[in-house]
């Protein structure tokens, strides 16, 4: 199987960056990331998510304080929020419909791949206090913060891997082809 394909190469080379240099991320770069998110697949093309860009260091620092999942010093954050009004208009049952989470994931993955291609580092974050982030960003009630993408210029970080390193799983250990045989 050949992996000499540009998209596949970006997928393979992207890594989570948790630590960043002091170099700021430009608004143009951040807008490009949102453009990448906008091109992500969305269940039923309903597009019920909004993106809050946080690039003022003061606000980034405040969100860090209530986000244990942010270990480093990102220069900007993109908060993906569910727009409850849009969801209602589209008939989405937020308490039951798990496709909304998939849409957060596809948008995030597009942004992370685009960031990598632009020479930026990124890190997904779900470990944060929603109630505290809501207060810090003064979010209106109809926007529910779901996910934070950390962005910055990646800093070289020595990898600390112990003896039992979790390696990439061999394809044959995660793949089944076709119909499962009848069990005895």
């Amino acid at each position: 199987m050949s992996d000499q394909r540009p998209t596949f190469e970006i997928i393979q080379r992207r890594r989570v960056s948790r630590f960043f240099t002091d170099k700021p991320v430009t608004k143009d770069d951040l807008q490009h990331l949102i453009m990448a998110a906008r091109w992500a697949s969305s269940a039923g093309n309903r597009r019920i998510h909004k993106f809050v860009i946080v690039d003022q260091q003061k606000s980034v620092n405040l969100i860090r304080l209530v986000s244990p999942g942010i270990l480093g010093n990102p220069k900007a954050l993109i908060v993906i929020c569910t727009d409850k009004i849009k969801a209602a208009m589209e008939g989405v049952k937020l308490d039951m419909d798990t496709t909304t989470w998939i849409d957060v994931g596809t948008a995030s993955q597009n942004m992370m791949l685009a960031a990598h291609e632009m020479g930026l580092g990124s890190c997904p974050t779900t470990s944060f206090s929603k109630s505290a982030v809501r207060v810090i960003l003064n979010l209106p009630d109809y926007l529910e913060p779901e996910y934070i993408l950390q962005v910055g210029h990646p800093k070289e970080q020595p990898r600390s891997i112990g003896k039992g390193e979790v390696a990439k799983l061999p394809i044959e250990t995660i793949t089944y082809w076709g119909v499962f045989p009848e069990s005895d």
Partner: protein
Amino acid sequence: MTEHMILTETEALQLLAYLTASAEISLVEPDLYGPFRLIDACSKLAERVLQHDPGDSREFWEEIKAEIDLKKIWLMSDRVNFREFIKQMPAKVAQELVRREVKDEVVK
């Protein structure tokens, strides 16, 4: 040991923000993330202490912070050794407590 040294109220508030957020997300995160959040809070505490010039204790705090920051991310790559690291950290802190007791006895 610098007994006069304390966190500022702002620093305490920042730690409080981190700890309360950790408590909230621990309701839904995997069990092993609880120890991770606590040990990460220890690193943040050490960072604050170092900012207040701990005098001849500096080396201890620097070593503790460096070790935590190096090994805490084993949670994501090596859970066996992460557990061992978590188990060993209190002993290291206890050694420092004992060292100070002995030192204080000598001074008295």
